[in-house]
């Protein structure tokens, strides 16, 4: 192929357009990040070269090899990159520049920026004059053939230790040891190329593929058969099926080497789908959250919600801490280990949430409409608490490494996350308000907006769930004619996207560690215990009327999509290390909880709800908050639980 060097007129054109856009992003430039970006630009390559200069180094390699996993020998080998003189001088100038500016950003990143910009020749020089050095300019330099570090050597987020000091209130996580390899779709790197099938194996692969599709077809047929559905209800599995957990199993099967459909390269390529799925869950939760739900709360309800969330959270954190301590050995350092704290908080946050199917279960058991409405409101407010928990974890437990550019105080990350969510929400609001799109066009707009918001958040290592939640929240609570068509679009796509999300999650799940299963058992027990205790304590609040069936529904409540999204989000923020056990605990915990809830409440069930259309979001303009009882089938059957 011809050398892909842009023609000079293109360079000038790009530069001119960037100058124009720089004016457009003037608002962004007012923010501390953008201002800092102009001085000490976060850099791509922060690169191997700059970061390695002082860091004992891991696995460049975590850069997946052909099979998506790094070779241990590579991983363990210390690397001496031998940074060239130009890089060294650039480093020092970068440091000076950053310190002059008094920026809290990590100055070392400038080294690679300057080096890469120098390599990029005239193209980058021109950009440098404008103090706009784009990653691809620099990236192209870094990928030049004479560069010893090509794209494959890009370190993953979990690898290098940070070269600069951190703000005081940000907990520093240690680098993940090289042999703890993250999943292919959660690492933020390019997908490896899938190898072609050897000629002698082709016939076998064709037959296997067709058989796989036939098996899928057979499963779908059997799963939809009335007799099988009756059997599912008898065994207490119908809710597990409805919640989409078979897709987790399907994902795991498709990942199995004997099946070979979701191979590591394919999973790596499906990474964006996982991220869109995360954003989608956050967006839906936000869009369902009518701000009026917090107005005119019945007396005692805030106390009940607070008690439930705090007690369940506390119980889970305490029990999980004991298990984690047991595994790591009870030492003083362990107690102050941020990874230990982070893991416990993730478990606590995910476990203190309740699925949106809870009101439906209550209705199926013959609960009154008032009870269903009350429980629905509680569940929604608990989701808000979960979002806040995730926001705090993502802000105060920042992932470290060469791929993480800015070092800001945790509070700044909180504000940045909220600001990003609001900013993107306003943009999407403007898009929807000014576009008279039909349903298919709404699909494009929403899919594009969620993907954009999720990717935007991910590029800053913010939580896509929280950012998209904020965007959804704004859209749900701002006035506009778009809500109905937006709700229709969300309803139509909610379940397929969630199921595909679960499929990828299932494929990524590494359930082979015994420790994760022990943690799961304790997690489920602590969650039930915490929910019971929290409901008991909060239920005594003055003025609160809570029926017995509501109490039972709140205690024996399944975990929802948001819990799974939280742990997947955590796996993306902190790939590798102990997070795989946390994933096992929460994912398996969600499945076990569904089964237990069905078993615990089986004898109290009213005639089973027939399998029908999934839940739908109902927009009730200028009305009371959409309570569970009025929300139509959404709260009666779960789209995203």
């Amino acid at each position, binding site marked *: 192929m011809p050398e892909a060097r842009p023609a000079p007129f293109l360079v000038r054109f790009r530069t001119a357009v960037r100058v124009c856009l720089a004016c457009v992003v003037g608002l962004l430039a007012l923010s501390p990040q953008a201002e800092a970006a102009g001085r000490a630009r*976060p850099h791509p390559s922060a690169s191997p070269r700059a970061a390695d200069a002082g860091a004992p180094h891991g696995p460049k390699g975590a850069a997946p090899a052909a099979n998506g996993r790094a070779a241990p020998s590579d991983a363990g080998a210390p690397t001496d990159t031998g940074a060239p003189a130009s890089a060294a001088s650039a480093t020092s100038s970068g440091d000076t520049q950053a310190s002059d500016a008094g920026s809290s950003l990590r100055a070392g990143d400038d080294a690679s920026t300057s080096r890469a910009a120098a390599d990029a020749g005239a193209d980058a020089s021109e950009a440098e004059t404008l103090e706009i050095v784009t990653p691809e300019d620099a990236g192209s330099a870094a990928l030049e053939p004479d560069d010893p570090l090509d794209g494959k050597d890009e370190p993953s987020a979990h690898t290098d230790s940070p070269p600069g000091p951190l703000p005081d209130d940000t907990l520093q996580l240690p680098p993940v040891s090289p042999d703890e390899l993250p999943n292919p779709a959660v690492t933020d*790197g390019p997908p490896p190329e899938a190898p072609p099938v050897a000629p002698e194996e082709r016939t076998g692969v064709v037959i296997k593929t067709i058989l796989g*599709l036939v098996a899928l077809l057979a499963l*779908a047929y059997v799963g939809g058969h009335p007799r099988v559905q009756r059997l599912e209800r008898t065994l207490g599995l119908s809710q597990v099926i409805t919640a989409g957990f078979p897709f987790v199993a399907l994902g795991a099967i498709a990942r199995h080497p004997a099946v070979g459909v979701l191979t590591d390269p394919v999973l790596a390529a499906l990474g964006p789908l996982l991220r869109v799925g995360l954003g989608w869950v956050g967006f839906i939760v936000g869009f369902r959250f009518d701000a009026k739900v917090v107005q005119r709360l019945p007396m005692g309800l805030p106390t009940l919600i607070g008690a439930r969330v705090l007690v369940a959270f506390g119980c889970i954190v305490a029990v999980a801490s004991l298990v984690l301590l047991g595994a790591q050995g009870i030492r003083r350092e362990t107690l102050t280990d941020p990874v230990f704290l982070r893991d416990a908080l993730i478990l606590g946050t995910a476990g203190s949430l309740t699925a949106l199917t809870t009101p439906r279960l209550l209705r199926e058991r013959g609960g009154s409409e008032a009870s269903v409405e009350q429980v629905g409101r509680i569940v929604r407010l608990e989701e808000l608490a979960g979002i806040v928990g995730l926001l705090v974890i993502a802000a105060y437990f920042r992932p470290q490494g060469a791929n993480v550019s800015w070092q800001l105080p945790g509070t700044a990350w909180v504000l940045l996350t909220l600001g990003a969510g609001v900013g993107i929400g306003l943009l999407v609001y403007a898009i929807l308000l000014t576009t008279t799109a039909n349903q298919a066009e709404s699909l494009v707009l929403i899919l594009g907006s969620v993907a954009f918001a999720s990717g935007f958040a991910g590029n800053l290592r913010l939580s896509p769930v929280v950012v998209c939640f904020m965007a959804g929240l704004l859209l749900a609570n701002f006035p506009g004619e778009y809500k109905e068509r937006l709700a229709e679009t969300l309803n139509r796509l909610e379940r397929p996207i969630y199921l595909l999300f679960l499929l990828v999650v299932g494929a990524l799940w590494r359930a082979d560690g015994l420790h994760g299963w022990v943690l799961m058992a304790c997690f489920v027990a602590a969650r039930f215990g915490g929910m019971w205790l929290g409901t008991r304590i909060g239920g005594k609040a003055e003025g609160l009327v809570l029926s017995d069936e509501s109490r039972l529904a709140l205690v024996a409540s399944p975990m929802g999509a948001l819990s799974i999204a939280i742990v997947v989000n955590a796996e993306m923020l902190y790939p590798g290390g102990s997070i795989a056990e946390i994933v096992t605990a929460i994912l398996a915990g969600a499945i076990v909880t569904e089964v237990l809830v069905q078993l615990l409440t089986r004898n109290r069930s009213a005639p089973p709800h027939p399998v029908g259309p999934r839940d739908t979001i109902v927009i009730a303009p200028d009305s009371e908050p959409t309570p569970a009882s009025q929300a139509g089938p959404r709260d009666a059957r779960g789209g995203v639980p």
Partner: protein
Amino acid sequence: MIRIALLLALGGLMHATMSFTVGTVPGSFGTTVSFGYLLLTAYFAGALFKRVRLPKLTGYLVAGLVVGPSALAFVPEAALNNLAIFTGVAVALIALSAGSELDLRTMRPLFRSIGWITTLTMAGTTLLLAAAIMALRPWLDFLQKARLAQAIAVAFVLGVVMVAKSPAVVVALGKETRADGPVAKTVLGAVVIGDLLVIVLFAVASALAKAAFGAAAATTARMLAWEVLGSFVAGVCLGGLITVYLQKVRDGAGLFVLTTCFVVSEVGRRLYFDPMLVALSAGLFIRNVTGTADRLRAEIDSSSLPVYVTFFAVAGATIHVDALASSGVPAIALVVVRGAGLLALSRAGAKLAGAPEVVQRFAGFGLLPQAGLALALAMLFAKTFPEFGADAAALLLGVVAINELAAPALYRYALTRCGEAEQPTDSLNPGATPTPTPAPPRPVAMG
């Protein structure tokens, strides 16, 4: 104006996002944000193009070109590579849709026209292009080095690649304009059958050309036979599976179709099947052997707009302006030869078949667009002939780039002029209307 402001705001945010990017190669989040940005930008560009009476599809392509690596580089090359898995699924879905629209029974009256048009345009334009390439030999470095026999063989292969058409563009424009009538039907048939022939011819021609360069032609031929025949058989099997699903299972057909397209794209590629051929065969089987094609179309159409927008925006972003700059004059000359050949020969073919005047005048315009297959064959050509494939691929990409941008507007113009396009058109998407029900075929007076 508002749309332009939104485009600028999106561009500003994307620019800011790029400044956050860490790592020289954008990872999944970079790909995710690029995907969202492409989708939104292409959508707005399509709406703007519609206002100036150009196809939305051209808007998607131009949006991709402008924000892609060739111009603003907001969407980097690596992100486009990462999106290949999605565009692969999109190609399979589009081909499945195209195949499921080819009802051979209702098209029987058109067979004569399609046959003549396809034969003449394929054979004639390929030879014309090969001759033009030979005539341009002094300006083409990669041919100067080859012996005469080798140069002729390579020119023939290049001619085959350049004659490739685009069912995706034809289907998408058909949906956008809701065109129905002899021209639209003839073009669809000629394009689908023509592309099937291109795949076969490419297999044969490149085997012969490899032989001219001293390679084991038998091995190449065997491999390509596997690709063509294997793809066809796999397509029929797949069509059977989809049919059984549509008949026996009530829910989740959309997901199943998506899964099969994913498998076709991913596993098929690794098996050296041609995903487009597999999906086309599956669609043809479903339409002509089973009675489930309408349900399949309804499943595909309900969510097809994002697929089209993404596919064409990514196709636009992968247009190599650099390649066009380096091989501009020969590429323009070849585009002119190709266009003249297709228009003249399709007219001659339609006349020979006794087709109506509108078909004679306008069917050729539908053969002009190029997109996925031509790009894929250009890449395959570069791999098949590593000695000079890169230079030749640059020429091919230049030709495809021009046709990709200009030809959809010409075909839309033709559909409007021949009176088959609905006016005013609303959108590419079928979601603007209730689930499409199969319209009874218009009576076609054909010889």
